[in-house]
């Protein structure tokens, strides 16, 4: 189980309606169903992952994350989650806006490209490869490269309220200098 699952579960109340964008094989939704009895739906566009969701007994809706959540009612969900997928979508601002349209709050986690090991790697002339960035430059699904500081600047610019932030260094909580010391961050976001 990924370490951000526990954090996310803390933010979800029992019985909530939860949407997980880029839900993969549905393991987060399954976890939340077990510990929080949520009414959960995943969005996934990869046929193999979608099949895995069906096998896992997780509700999954096939659609392209870069498209708007057209047809989804405003404010239907209590939480809309995007776990380690934001760096892989083109329409970053549109997706964030849609998450906060269909959900009361959004939960977003992503790898921090500003992590010191990544900076060190770049200084040494190579693109970073780590636990949070496991792919090589030539096969990575990631297309947006941003840091904790970059993300918070975008939230400020787009009127997105940061309600809570937890930063991690390969699974361990980081309290100081997260943009330098954390490999990943998890946010709870709302509308200003």
């Amino acid at each position, binding site marked *: 189980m990924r370490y951000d699952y526990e954090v996310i579960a803390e933010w979800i109340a029992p019985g909530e309606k939860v949407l997980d964008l880029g839900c993969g094989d549905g393991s987060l939704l399954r976890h939340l169903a077990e510990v929080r009895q949520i009414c959960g739906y995943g969005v996934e566009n990869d046929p193999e992952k979608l099949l895995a969701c069906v096998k896992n007994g997780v509700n999954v809706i096939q*659609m392209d994350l870069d498209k708007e959540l057209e047809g989804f009612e405003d404010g239907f969900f209590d939480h809309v989650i995007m776990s380690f997928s934001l760096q892989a979508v083109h329409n970053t601002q549109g997706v964030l806006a849609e998450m906060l349209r269909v959900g009361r709050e959004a939960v977003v986690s992503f790898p921090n490209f500003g992590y010191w090991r990544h900076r060190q790697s770049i200084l040494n002339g190579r693109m970073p490869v780590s636990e949070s960035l496991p792919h090589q430059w030539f096969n990575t699904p990631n297309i947006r490269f941003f840091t904790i500081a970059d993300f918070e600047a975008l939230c400020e610019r787009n009127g997105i309220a940061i309600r809570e932030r937890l930063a991690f260094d390969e699974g361990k909580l980081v309290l100081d200098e997260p943009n330098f010391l954390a490999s990943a961050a998890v946010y709870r976001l709302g509308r200003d």
Partner: protein
Amino acid sequence: MTAPQSVGIVAPQTAHFAEPLPLRSGGTLAGYDLVYETYGTLNADRSNAVLVCHALSGSHHVAGVYADEPQNVGWWDNLVGPGKPLDTRKFFVIGVNNLGGCNGSAGPCALNPATGRPWGADFPFVTVEDWVDAQARLADRLGIARFAAVMGGSLGGMQALSWTLQYPERVGHAAVIASAPKLTAQNIAFNEVARQAILSDPDFHGGHYYEHGVVPARGLKLARMVGHITYLSDDAMAEKFGRSLRHGKAVYSYDVEFEIESYLRYQGDKFAGHFDANTYLLTTKALDYFDPAFSHGGDLTAALARAQADFLVVSFTTDWRFSPARSREIAYALMHNGRRVSYTEIDCPAGHDSFLLDDQQYHAVLTAWFDRIEV
């Protein structure tokens, strides 16, 4: 895992119902026969029954072959059988010929008990809801209080959806495939062209052609040709036929020149040789009328609030007659009711007909979904 097998030799059965069936079009059907087939074994708890609803040209013959007709393979044989997605080692599967059909159930070409002559045009209009009511009575007869699942493609998907609204407590799961919550104007338009082809055939005789010893074969053929165009995708047609010329060059005639003409004529003739024109008329009207949201001011979410089943909604990327957007409406309306629902859009080139094919991803999803159903 065992290799998928055929259910083998099957035989249709007939159930007679004496109790009148009230119809949405007004009036009642005094008494009627329903022809059906079953595959697999009903378990002791009677909890493993799956109803498969047929579409426009389908019938109760879903799987297997007949002893005297080894070439007559059921229309969804690739789906139903031992080791197949709808596994008959686990499930007891039922196929029913709908009312108004032409395969043995009460319909225009069956005898009207009141007159002793074929019903013809006097057979009443039947709706998706009426079919579901009739299927429910057959379920009662077979001792099935609750279906593990009801499934169908196209018009069959409408029946599966309607089951969850008319008898919510009697459906555990519903698979709605290549279907729609209602037809679009364009879709009704295609049906109307098909109907006009039949109605304007001089051999139609106001629907009482049986008495004249003829059938409106030309009209029915045309209707099927139009339908066939809409069941295939542009790409599938281009791939299969392109602009291939039978003579290798234009010969300037109205006989078959392009291979697509040959294909459509063949399909039209084949269909007109075994299907009933009145059934075609009735069934296309049933398609047109289906609109469960109508009585809820067009609010599909409100209309589906009654449903209790767990759903699987499937569409096909190249299906323009029952487009993915229509299936998505169903999936979202169910989601907005908090129902358990998964929706997938299968990338298959064959258009509407894809739902009858054995695309790997499509069947993998169905297999996984049926595997999770506890009986």
